[in-house]
């Protein structure tokens, strides 16, 4: 009881001391996006560069439109990861947009490519799929949408660099099993639907070995035409 009274007395003194404009701002969290996304950074890194957990994706530098689409999908529960679904549930659209812009405009360096655990043959198969696709099996080249440099295109197509193999194969798996969907027509679902388990392993492994390009920024909207329509990439 006494301790409690002492604590509240201390609080009153602190409050009284903070009378004045400068002190008042000092008594508030910084009015920045960086402070507002501190709930995200233990998993995604301070600048969205990713963390040591191989399933936690890098966010930095991806197109803002793409990141925003993901935040909308997590908020509604269409894309599932309960800890994030919970955090975003009651946040309004303009705020999610601001978060997306924030991470899109951060440019920490891409990580060093990790040494690969798969064989040369598997890597070669991955490279073939990514750069040429497989016309016989209706698989378009990944680069036909994700860009010749795999850096993505504004506003809705993400780059595929700086992601770990485990994350990429989990996402392709999620599309194959229908637990991740994008705006219709969901072109990634068509692509992933044609991939076998072995294809996924190969292409994910090859992507993870790619070194950082000189300019990792997504190319402007309309730089190249997509092989078929994607709901996330308005014409």
């Amino acid at each position: 009881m006494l301790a409690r009274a002492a604590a509240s007395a201390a609080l009153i003194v602190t409050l009284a001391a903070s009378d004045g404009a400068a002190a008042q701002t000092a008594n508030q969290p910084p009015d920045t996006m960086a402070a507002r996304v501190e709930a995200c950074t233990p998993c995604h890194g301070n600048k969205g560069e990713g963390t040591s957990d191989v399933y936690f994706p890098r966010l930095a530098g991806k197109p803002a439109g793409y990141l925003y689409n993901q935040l909308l999908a997590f908020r509604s529960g269409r894309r599932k990861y309960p800890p994030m679904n919970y955090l975003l549930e009651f946040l309004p659209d303009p705020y999610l947009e601001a978060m997306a812009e924030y991470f899109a405009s951060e440019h920490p360096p891409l990580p060093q490519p990790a040494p690969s655990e798969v064989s040369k043959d598997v890597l070669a198969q991955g490279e073939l799929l990514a750069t040429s696709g497989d016309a016989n099996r209706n698989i378009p080249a990944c680069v036909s949408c994700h860009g010749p440099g795999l850096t993505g295109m504004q506003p809705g197509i993400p780059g595929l660099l700086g992601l770990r193999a485990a994350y990429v194969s989990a996402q392709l798996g999620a599309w194959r099993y229908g637990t991740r969907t994008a705006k219709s027509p969901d072109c990634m679902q068509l692509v992933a639907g044609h991939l076998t388990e072995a294809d996924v392993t190969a292409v994910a492994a090859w992507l993870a070995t790619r070194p950082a390009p000189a300019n990792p920024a997504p190319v402007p909207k309309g730089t190249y035409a997509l092989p078929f329509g994607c709901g996330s990439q308005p014409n």
Partner: protein
Amino acid sequence: MGFKLSITLLALAAFTTVAQAQDKTSDIIARGEYLARAGDCTACHTAAEGRLFAGARPMPTPFGTIYTSNITPDPETGIGKWSADDFYRTMHNGRFPDGGLIYPAMPFASYTKVTRADSDAIFAYLRSIPPVNQKNKPHELRFPYDNRQLILGWRTLFFSEGEFKPDPTKSAEWNRGAYLVEGLGHCGMCHSPINALGGTSQSDAFKGGLIPMQNWYAPSLTSNREAGLGDWSIKDITDLLQTGVSARGVVYGPMAEVVHNSLQYLDDADTKAMAVYLKGIAEASSPPPASSALPNTESSLLISLGKTVYDKNCASCHGTQGEGKPPHWPPLANNQSIEMQSAVNPIRMVLNGGYPPGTKGNPMPYGMPPFAGLLSDNEVAAVVSYIRTAWGNRGTPVSAREANELRSAPLN
């Protein structure tokens, strides 16, 4: 000349009455929309990414999943064929137009207090929205709860029909607040001990309870040891209800939903009326002697580990003395919501983190990271024990087992 003028005048007169009538209807519809927000009809009857008021939002209960109904004016699948009388009967008495019984997941036990005029306004609003042709999703209730006759038993125990009766000894403002809290606000649906039948009894109204299936504790609104607001200023209460954050604490979990979907839309006068009423019903109660299940030596070890965890992970936002940076980084010293007998909420807060709701008054809230992946059960128990007992707080230590059990609590 004279003739022509009188015709013009007549036409004008006719025109003004039509305009007035339209004006009145649009006033009623606007009022209905406001009241539908106050009653949270809007969010409960709209599914994620679904059409407005088309229903199909799942509500998990201990008896199975109930889906909310389509209440758009579609004649086949909505309530397009209902009359205002039918609608009032549903709100007031929990029955369908054919007399069938409605599950109490639809909070008619509170809505029974709503006046006929307010019910009519909500109905007028619902008639004005676009109809959606979408069949109601059948409930997925286990035997025997799929039998609606069982609702009769619940009604006998927990339902008393009757519009709100103002208390003449209290101010108009207090009565307005009481009407909103007890009626449309259906606050008692969560803030009451919930018995096995999912009912709340009148005498226990606003005494607090664990919400089944969600594993959140809705604190008592009458005890100052819990969420009773007796020693809060009116401004702190209206801030909390309207913006989700205040100098005394913040809302989270299911209460964030209430503020986000409903309370943020109430005007200043109604919010203040609710605050006056809530402050009024809180009764100071003498603190029960602190009792902990943990032996003393064990809890003092836990608490010293807790301080280490706190200084490293929490103090940057909540301050070394638990003073926070209110309202955005809430104070933990002298914060009722972490000192309550039930430690469910602070444990979950640490495991899951959270953002207060984004509201008109606080559109870009600050957030707290989830610590489930960063701290062990023992560390969670330690830091929660620490914040419940440091700085003069009067809570009790918690065990690693309690922390562990809440790791599997549902997140939505």
